[in-house]
């Protein structure tokens, strides 16, 4: 009993079988007594069986009928045999056509490959059982395996299978001897086609099943015409490129990348897969100090290449920091983060990006044109993954046209270029190769690699140069809360927040204000690496002298972690540096309320600029400078509260004085 769960409403068709109908037409022509391939009898010991055809006749007929060359006729003939419409009488296991005197015969239509009836395993089991009953030991290895497995899976109907096998055998015996021979040949050929021996290429292999029967004639209803019309309209509307242009682009690409192609150019110093020497991988690691010349050369190809390579991006970031225009790149990376990040954090990230980069008076305001800004802000009402695409593209083009050119001429790049190494091709002797092979070791586990990277980043965060403008809190547009940049060293109190030169994911600073983290923070865990493997990557090497410092330090340290939880500052970390009057110590009671407030935290950046120093108009109503009480919980509500300035997204409702939690 076969379970047929799916009633076949024509829902499962095999895609490559469209040709079957056409092949059948060819076969019908071929076997025509007058105009088809001429047949001859096959002589066996005791009888002759008619209707055998030779391979060369088949090929000649095909070449003649379709006016094609002999090779093509051979291929066509091979296809006929592979599909099982013609079967060889000698060498029955190889489904090819030999254009000589070897004999073939047409397969009876009952055994033709059919679209609508997939070949049943039950029938195969019966066939194998029949052959085994007829003569023990006749089954080949793969057939025996199949037999055993079928016996296992069809155990419940095995008795029937054996019974049917016997009956079929008896029924077959009722026929005349030559017919029996013919039938046996036919059946054998059928199963060679549909259950090929292992290792042979079967013409019956097909991919996924289709929903539409490719052999069915489609009825030309109005719906059919409607679809045809739509299809042709869309074809007309498609943008086209002149072939000279596209070919020119291809040629240019080929010329540029010729030496970098892994197949066309040898791998320097040597291909690790071939020589077991991993120098190549070592030299090209993600955050290597000194890149290779080839790598640096790639950066000059296009801006996209530069950004795609993490080392290149790091170099570029360094350059931008020196130029004090890192916000563009930071914004671009923030957008990437949004695009590729998890869906759960998307909303918050979008908000955060807006507050940091796009809003008026934002700490790291980027300069995009009005129209794009308008579109983006509108889109942010219902944020999704690609809501910042327009702005991101704009900034990308800006960087490409402006900063990229300058970068390529800058001393930073020239220095990198000069220092880049050009390894020599290895020339290993045979013994050396063997020695290399013996020295093969598995590489580090990815977990350890990630931890190392985090530690590395944390270390670099503490040791990077200082970006002055980023730190000047009263000069806009980028206030001190360099959320996305910079590490915080264990610096003295008025904090200058250094930037990390090589921190590649600026946006990933987080204050993940989990209670635990806060508590830990409050304990003033200083020093140490941020080498925790948890997502948030808490860096804690901040002195506890200033809470802001601490918080920021943590912020910034975490910013270098691969985890890309969006940055936010909690209200507990109001403006750093010197604004002691404004320093609001974190009230301990806030610790226990992590979840709602965490969300609230994410949504705020408190810019604690004293009113008198405010340069940019803030459109929020946080005139009141109450104590920096923490915000209350609904995510996304920009409640004005506290002395801290908030940047509120304009679409958010302004709910003053939301209580905490």
């Amino acid at each position, binding site marked *: *009993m*076969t379970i047929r769960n799916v009633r076949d409403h024509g829902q499962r068709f095999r895609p490559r079988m469209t040709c079957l109908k056409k092949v059948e037409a060819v*076969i*019908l022509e071929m076997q025509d*007594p007058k105009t088809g391939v001429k*047949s001859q009898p096959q002589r*066996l*010991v*005791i*009888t002759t*069986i*008619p*209707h055998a055809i030779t391979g060369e006749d088949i090929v000649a007929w095909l070449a003649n009928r379709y006016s094609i060359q002999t090779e093509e006729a051979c291929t066509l003939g091979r296809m006929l045999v592979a599909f099982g419409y013609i079967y060889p*009488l*000698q060498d029955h296991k190889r489904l090819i056509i030999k254009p000589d005197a070897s004999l073939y*015969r047409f397969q*009876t*239509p*009952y055994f033709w490959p*059919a679209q609508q*009836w997939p070949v049943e395993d*039950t029938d195969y089991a019966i066939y194998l059982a029949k*052959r*085994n*009953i*007829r*003569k023990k030991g*006749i089954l080949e290895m793969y057939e025996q395996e199949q*037999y*055993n497995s079928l*016996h296992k899976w069809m*155990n*419940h*109907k*095995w*008795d*029937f299978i*054996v*019974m049917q096998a*016997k*009956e*079929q*055998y*008896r*029924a*077959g*015996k*009722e*026929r*005349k*001897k*030559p*017919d*029996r*021979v*013919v*039938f*046996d040949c*036919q059946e*054998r050929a059928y199963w060679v086609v549909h259950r090929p021996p292992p290792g042979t290429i079967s013409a019956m292999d097909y991919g996924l099943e289709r929903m539409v029967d490719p052999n069915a004639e489609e009825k030309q209803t109005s719906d059919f015409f409607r679809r045809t019309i739509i299809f042709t309209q869309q074809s007309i509307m498609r943008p086209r490129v002149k072939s000279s242009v596209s070919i020119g682009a291809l040629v240019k690409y080929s010329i540029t990348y010729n030496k970098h192609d892994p197949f066309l150019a040898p791998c320097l110093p040597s291909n690790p897969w071939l020589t077991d020497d991993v120098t190549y991988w070592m030299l090209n690691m993600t955050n290597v100090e000194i890149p290779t010349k080839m790598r640096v050369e790639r950066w000059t190809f296009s801006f996209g290449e530069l950004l795609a390579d993490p080392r290149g991006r790091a170099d570029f970031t360094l350059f931008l920091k020196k130029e004090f225009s890192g916000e563009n790149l930071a914004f671009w990376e923030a957008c990437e983060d949004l695009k590729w990040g998890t869906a759960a954090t998307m909303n918050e990230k979008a908000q955060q990006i807006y507050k940091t980069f796009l809003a008026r008076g934002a700490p790291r305001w980027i300069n995009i044109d009005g129209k794009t800004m308008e579109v983006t802000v509108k889109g942010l009402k219902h944020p999704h993954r690609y809501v910042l695409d327009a702005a991101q593209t704009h900034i990308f083009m800006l960087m490409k046209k402006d900063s990229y050119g300058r970068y390529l001429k800058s001393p930073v790049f020239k220095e990198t270029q000069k220092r880049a190494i050009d390894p020599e091709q290895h020339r290993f002797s045979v013994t050396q190769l063997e020695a290399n092979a013996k020295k093969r070791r598995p590489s580090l586990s990815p977990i350890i690699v990630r931890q190392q990277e985090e530690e590395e980043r944390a270390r670099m965060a503490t040791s990077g140069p200082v970006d002055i403008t980023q730190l000047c809190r009263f000069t806009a547009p980028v206030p001190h809360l360099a959320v996305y940049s910079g590490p915080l060293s264990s610096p003295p109190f008025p904090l200058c927040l250094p930037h990390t030169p090589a921190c590649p994911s600026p946006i990933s600073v987080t204050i993940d204000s989990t209670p635990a983290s806060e508590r830990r923070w409050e304990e003033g865990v200083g020093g140490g690496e941020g080498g925790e493997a948890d997502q948030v990557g808490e860096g804690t090497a901040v002195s506890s002298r200033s809470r802001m410092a601490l918080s920021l330090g943590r912020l910034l340290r975490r910013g270098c972690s691969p985890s890309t939880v969006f940055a936010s500052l909690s209200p507990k970390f109001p403006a750093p540096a010197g604004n002691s009057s404004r320093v609001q110590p974190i009230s301990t009671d806030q610790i226990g309320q992590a979840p709602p407030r965490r969300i609230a935290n994410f949504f705020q950046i408190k810019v604690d600029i004293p009113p008198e120093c405010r340069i940019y108009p803030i459109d929020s109503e946080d005139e009141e400078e109450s104590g920096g009480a923490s915000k209350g919980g609904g995510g996304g509500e920009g409640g004005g509260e506290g002395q801290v300035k908030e940047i509120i997204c304009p679409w958010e409702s302004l709910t003053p004085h939301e209580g905490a939690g």
Partner: protein
Amino acid sequence: MANHLGTTDDEQAACQAQMNRWQRTVGEIQTRKRQVAECERALEALSKVTACFQQMATSVGSSSDSSSLREKTNDTRALAHKVCTGLHRKLVPLLAETVPGQEDRDKVEQLWVHFLTGLESLQQDLYKFGDLTDRFPLKQKNDRRALIKTGASDEFSGVAAQAASTQSPWVGTEVEQNPDLKTHITQIDAMIKEMLQKVSIPFWAVESTQEAWTEGVDFSDAADDQDETLEVEVVSQDGKMSGCCHPPNCKFGCMLCLLT
């Protein structure tokens, strides 16, 4: 006194009732046994008819096709139909009566599974037969040109006779109309569906009674059908004639054996 009489009467009545019950049960058991045996024979018959049908259906569309072949195939189909419906009629109540724990429950379930498999197999063959007859009609004179030259002859009397010799194990069943092909297929479809819904038996629980590598001990004259001889020559090695496998009603089989 009266009491004694009454008790005796009661006892006697009770004894009698017990005896009746016992007799009834025995009778029931015997009936059931007979019915199960009938179903088994019917299943064998179905198997035989299906095999013959398949043998004939393989020639449809080939040069050995002819209207007489198609007639014979239809006759075989009618026979199959008869056997199927009869078996269906008998088996369903049998199964319905089966209580768990009954001795022959395994057997009956086996019959059920095999019947279903046989029905499916037959249905598949019917589909193919129908499709092929549509594809290769024989009405026009020129249609014979389209038939594929397969090298087989159009001698099917042996097979047809084999099929016709199937004895329906029960006599006196009402003669039903032989349905035409399409109706037949839909009927089988409906039968299968209905059977699946009516009785819920875990198919996979049925075990085979045969081992994996059954040898046909009675197919001793099989030596003349060795595979390797089919390729170039047919070596006729006549086996032992005594162990003729064919059932008693095989007239032609012995002739064939004689031939080789």
